[in-house]
């Protein structure tokens, strides 16, 4: 037994990210670690790699109990991790990155560059990687960067290599490349832990699978003995709390129609429509392209081809300004980054997108602005002293309401909510849902991106599911989590035929 994790616990503030993480990894096996977004996979692996420290449980490495205080402790023991987001120094060369932190010395504290490049070149040669030691890392593709991280891991003589969703940003051929490497590592009797959402493509390399759910290990079994449906069943057995239930309204006119929209590298031929009074859920795994779809529709990223039709009229949306003019509103995934001006008063935020309504010839009409702000505070039940309070001082839920109020003030009627409940507590979530419901009832059309499947089931009238930049299917509001997960994570029969 290479690694054994027993009942690992981890808290972040009040949130229990891990309750009972159990995992056994043998030398010479590829162990898949699966689970929904937020199941605790990455947290568990960060504990193994020494990036964070556990709050409870036992970690046994090659028969000895261990305690890693920092990543260096783990790598000294032979544990290496290839991260989802590359942790390389982009301006340095591949060789320099492979040796980062353990440079070869040539006496007098000088770095022996020649030797480092030689060793790196040999390493790359040995594995037939399409790399050159002297290339700067910033010019590499995501796959190339991962190969560099793998080189780093192999070079320090690791006996366990952890991959955190390595293929989520890779193309098909790059994915094949990574798989090939994973198999080689296994043949050399290394242990490999492979975190993924995409089981379909991994049956070929995975030997065993462990499923995490809500911070607990729920099942471990050899891949040979388990069906895809069984894995889905273990992954999504989360309870749907009945905190909120929405009564759907009869949908009205078509507010937005998207036909064959393609954008960037990810989005391919997306078609769907939104009608007045509807809340349409958009499910999928992280990296499926949901945020990118919102950005493209809102004019942040360019649309390469396809049509966008707003209330029956084709429109060209090349900037957020044009999207706003067409009646669209985006409540972004990251509130602090693109939604809220934290250091400014609530009133400034409320009227930010509708200045023309509260000004004449460039001069502000303060009474009108106050009126508008008061209206928004009352309508959305924003808990604050008054409109002059700084927006950043409010609670997460109330901040979100301020972002929404900006679009209410503007009179938007097509809302793109990207993860609207992220980082806000349960009570505030219900309030956000109520606001969305009220918007829909007053005739708006809503697209709601959420990684929380129970949320989609509670709020959405119908659910679109994306996978790798495509819409893989549409489900009615009363569907099950299994059905969503199947569309989100697995290749459909028709896709396989293509």
């Amino acid at each position, binding site marked *: 037994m290479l690694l054994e994790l027993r009942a690992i616990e981890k808290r972040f503030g009040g949130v229990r990210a891990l309750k009972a993480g159990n995992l056994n990894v043998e030398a010479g096996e590829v162990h898949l670690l699966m689970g929904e977004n937020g199941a605790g996979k990455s947290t568990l692996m960060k504990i193994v790699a020494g990036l964070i420290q556990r709050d409870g449980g036992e970690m046994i490495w090659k028969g000895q109990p261990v305690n890693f205080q920092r990543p260096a402790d783990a790598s000294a023991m032979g544990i290496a991790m290839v991260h989802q987001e590359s942790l390389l120094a982009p301006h340095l060369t591949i060789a320099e990155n492979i040796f980062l932190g353990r440079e070869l010395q040539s006496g007098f504290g000088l770095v022996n560059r020649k030797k480092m490049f030689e060793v790196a070149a040999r390493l790359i040669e040995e594995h037939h990687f399409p790399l050159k030691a002297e290339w700067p890392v910033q010019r590499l593709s995501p796959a190339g960067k991962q190969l560099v991280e793998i080189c780093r891991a192999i070079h320090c003589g690791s006996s366990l290599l952890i991959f955190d969703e390595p293929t989520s940003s890779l193309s098909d051929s790059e994915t094949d490349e990574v798989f090939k490497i994973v198999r080689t590592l296994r043949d050399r009797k290394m242990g490999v832990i492979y975190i993924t959402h995409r089981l379909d493509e991994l049956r070929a390399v995975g030997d065993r699978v462990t499923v995490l759910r809500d911070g607990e290990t729920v099942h471990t079994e050899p891949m040979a003995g388990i069906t895809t449906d069984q894995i889905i069943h273990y992954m999504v057995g989360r309870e749907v709390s009945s905190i909120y239930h929405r009564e759907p309204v009869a949908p009205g006119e078509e507010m937005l129609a998207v036909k064959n929209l393609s954008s960037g590298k990810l989005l391919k031929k997306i078609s769907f429509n939104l009608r007045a009074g509807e809340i349409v859920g958009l499910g999928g795994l992280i990296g499926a392209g949901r945020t990118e779809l919102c950005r493209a529709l*809102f004019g*942040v990223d360019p649309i390469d081809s396809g049509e966008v039709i707003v209330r029956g009229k084709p429109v060209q949306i090349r900037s*957020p*300004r044009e*999207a*706003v*003019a067409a009646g669209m509103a*985006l409540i*972004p995934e990251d509130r602090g*980054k*693109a*939604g*809220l*001006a*934290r*250091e*400014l008063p609530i009133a*400034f935020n409320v*009227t*930010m*997108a509708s*200045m*023309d309504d509260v*000004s004449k010839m*460039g*001069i*502000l009409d*303060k009474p009108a602005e106050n009126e508008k702000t008061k209206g928004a505070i009352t309508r959305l039940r924003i808990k604050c002293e008054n409109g002059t309070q700084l927006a*950043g*001082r409010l609670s997460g839920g109330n901040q979100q309401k301020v972002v929404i109020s*900006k679009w209410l003030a503007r009179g938007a009627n097509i809302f793109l909510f990207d993860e609207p409940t992220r980082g806000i507590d349960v009570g505030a979530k219900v309030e956000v849902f109520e606001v969305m419901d009220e918007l829909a009832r007053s005739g708006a059309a809503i697209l709601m991106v959420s990684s929380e499947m129970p949320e989609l089931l509670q709020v959405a009238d119908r659910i679109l599911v994306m996978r790798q930049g495509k819409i893989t299917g549409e489900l009615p509001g009363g569907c099950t989590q299994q059905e969503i997960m199947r569309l989100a994570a697995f290749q459909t029969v028709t896709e396989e035929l293509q």
Partner: protein
Amino acid sequence: MIQRLLPFLTLILLFVGLSIGSPHFLTSTNLSSVVRQTAVINIMALGMTLVIITSGIDLSVGAILAMGGIAGTMTLEHGAPIFVGVLAGIGAGLFWGFVNGFLITRLKIAPFIVTLGTLGIIRGLTLISTNGLPVHQIPQGFSYLGEGSLLFVPFVLWLLLGCALAMHVVLEHTKLGRYAFAIGSNPEAAYYAGIPVAFHTTAVYAICGMLTGLAGMIEASRLMTGQPTAGQGYELQAIAAVVIGGGSLRGGEGSVLGTLVGAFIMGLLSNGSDLLGVSPYVQQAIIGAVIILAVTVDELRKRKAV
């Protein structure tokens, strides 16, 4: 609250302290000379306030001041009426401010870099157009702008108050001012809200240039020459005034009152040092320390608040 008032208290304390410490301080000659000296930096600092609120910076204002002064005095040299000359100076400032804004928004290069570049370009062009020589042939009446008095008060004080009031209105009561705060506080949110960010950013730099052009004419009037080397290092004094007055280089913060107080604190420090016989070398060190102190106090206040 006390910390927010600290710049005001410092100003009052300086004033009272100097009144007691030097018999020459509280005389009309000295006070009006403080006002005249401070007005130039102060008017530039008003424009700088607007720029800094958008989380930008303008390092070229010293050069624009010289360019404005030269453009105006050369126009006067050719026999133009005084108000035409003044307008020429303001116009030159407006033009170069616009160029700054245009480069920043079109080339999407950091304001620090763009204005560092235009600082060199504008100063160079000013020296080329004058051959490095000052412009002297100026009608006597022009001295009124910088040295004249109206209702027993230096004329520049009226100008300063007018500009300050106008800037206050811009910041607090116009769409432009509101957008400046929004862009400085969260540029991405401003862009997502459909605000024409490039247009308003350009306007902000143009206004800063325009005020600097006016300051350049005041400076020229006080010296009664157009100096191609005028205004060197003024950009840092203008930035310091904004920062002492509570403006944040991270954007989204700044006020006209704060900047006025900041500029007068620096004016009094320098005047007081002269009166008390403190060497100009020590003066520089004191002003430097005050800048760091003011920002530290402001940072502490904000950290406590959040």
